[in-house]
């Protein structure tokens, strides 16, 4: 049993890190009242930028390349998400539609530029991806050490730490209170002197940065190159984690960890006795079926922020 856990847990953490980052982005955006179906596109952008930057600067930056790559991906993701913010906050576009457009646009731009710059449908493999490390001392602890601290990606820890930071920001700071207020009752927030548009812009841009981070981490830990099929559904999975986690940063993290766990099960199932006989399709669809069940109230009701999806128009009731 311990051996099984020792093989599942690192894989689960490895698969969930990109989902956690992106889902946290989704929490910020949706808490401010902007639905973000575009998470998928933001991840595509992040993956594309992360890989391209890594390929271009690996010679110069050496071992620091992946870290700087993800920072650049955060910046480009944030900038890219401004399109979604402008459309859905200022231009009062249907937020779901705008998000769908973001998804098309990111993939279009990513693959277009890949073909333009590399002359083929996919980039080369990066030479400086993230590598696993053993945490000194901690990895020597019996049982727990190999489970949580041996051959781990530092980005997995970063994801978990970031979830707590997001929770702190959203629930323990005035900024977080304002952001949530804007998503629950924008008119009341506006009356209290909070700029609804500004808060929503900030929230969407944060979600863009985190989506970019999630995409680049996925690309630099799991995929190692960029093509049409690098990001297929991870963004939607992150969106599901947001809802499954009831729009709460720690809930979203938990949901993302669970999805990562489910994914890792379908990867390592062959080596686990009682799972080897389960047809893989059931493990593949499990996260989605569970999300539907969760939404249907079997795992507790999930209430969206009240003003989620509604453009705020000053002066209307």
């Amino acid at each position: 049993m311990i051996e099984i856990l020792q093989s599942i847990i690192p894989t689960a953490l490895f698969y969930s890190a990109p989902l956690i980052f992106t889902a946290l982005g989704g929490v910020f955006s949706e808490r401010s009242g902007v639905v973000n179906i575009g998470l998928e596109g933001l991840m595509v952008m992040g993956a594309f930028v992360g890989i391209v930057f890594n390929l271009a600067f690996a010679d110069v930056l050496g071992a620091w390349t992946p870290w700087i790559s993800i920072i650049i991906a955060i910046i480009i993701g944030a900038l890219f998400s401004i399109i979604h913010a402008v459309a859905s906050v200022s231009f009062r576009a249907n937020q779901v539609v705008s998000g769908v457009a973001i998804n098309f646009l990111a993939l279009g731009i990513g693959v277009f530029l890949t073909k333009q710059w590399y002359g083929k449908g996919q980039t080369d493999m990066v030479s400086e991806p993230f590598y696993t490390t053993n945490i000194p001392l901690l990895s020597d602890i019996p049982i727990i050490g190999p489970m949580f601290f041996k051959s781990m990606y530092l980005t997995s820890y970063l994801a978990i730490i970031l979830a707590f930071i997001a929770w702190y920001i959203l629930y323990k700071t005035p900024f977080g209170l304002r952001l949530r207020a804007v998503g629950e009752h924008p008119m009341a927030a506006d009356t209290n002197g909070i700029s609804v548009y500004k808060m929503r812009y900030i929230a969407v841009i944060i979600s863009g940065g985190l989506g970019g981070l999630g995409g680049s981490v996925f690309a630099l830990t799991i995929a190692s190159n960029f093509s049409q099929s690098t990001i297929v559904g991870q963004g939607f999975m992150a969106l599901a984690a947001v809802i499954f986690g009831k729009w709460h940063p720690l809930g979203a993290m938990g949901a993302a960890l669970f999805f990562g766990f489910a994914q890792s099960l379908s990867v390592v199932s062959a080596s686990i006795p009682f799972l080897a006989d389960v047809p893989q399709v059931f493990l593949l669809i499990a996260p989605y079926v569970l999300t539907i069940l969760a939404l249907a109230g079997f795992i507790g009701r999930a209430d969206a922020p009240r003003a989620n999806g509604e453009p705020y128009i000053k002066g209307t009731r």
Partner: protein
Amino acid sequence: MTTNRLISILIPIISVILGLIAGAIIMLISGHNPIEGYAALWNGAFGDQYTLGETIRRTTPYIFTGLAVAFAFRSGLFNIGAEGQVMVGWLAAVWVGLAVDAPMYIHLPLALITAAAAGAVWGFVPGLLKAKLGVHEVIVTIMMNYIALYSMNAIIRNVLTEKKTTTAEIHGSASLASEWLQSITYFSRMHYGILIALFAAIIMWFIIQRTSIGYELKAVGFNRHASKYAGMNVSKNIILSMVIAGAFAGLGGAMEGLGTYGTVSVMSGFTNLGFDGIAVALLGGNNAFGVVLAAILFGALKEGAGQMPTGAGVPTELVDIIIALIILFVASSYIIRWALLRFKKEGK
């Protein structure tokens, strides 16, 4: 009223023009000749009988997925699940095409009805959850898409074939392919599905505009509470709307299964027919006639894109960027409307 109507017709046209201009600018920046690029696009879509046939072939499922999204939109529902509904419809159509042996006048309708039913079931689940438990249909339909994708792959691998990635060809008696249509279009894959698609558009128009069912569906879309107060069964209408939408998308899948390919294959990702259907519906103003026009535009863009790399050295993805921008522009119609009204005022 007349200006409003005019503006709602102008918005999609302006959006398309803006999208194409943006595409031209992107081509200029990336060092391609936009005139050559668009000439290649035009030739790729309408250059000869073959490309024309292929454009029609590509338009056919877009009409169905466009209708599927538009129909749900009319009752205030956002059907992102057309993608999954297409896949189950495709699978069901091919399954019947392979498993049943019957004369054409039974076999083909049976395959089509099964595909529509499969899509309808895929629409029923989110409809039911929305109606009875208030679960947002967007999320459920997204989840249903993945369930469709993985289940379909598993069924193809384990039930329809023995660990293969593509099924056998369906029996001729279930096929929509037509030698006559192929012969007049230099052997394109054009098939009779286009007629069914146009017929479906007429049916949607008829249901929405000429029946009390359609009236109720629209009423629920406009104001759920008022409809309830007026004595309509809101839950029933939500479910019905998703079921009909799902059936349209399922038929769209059948077009691919019975017409274009005659098989179904394991897929690594989505077909994008359903997602493109969202764009088609939006551009078509969620109106049956508009959907047909928008589907033709998208069919032509997607088909013509194939010619762009060889004709002008432009990657095909340019068309995806253009489509994304068109959706963004249509979605941001508030600002276009504002600009148009402003322009008009100043003209006076």
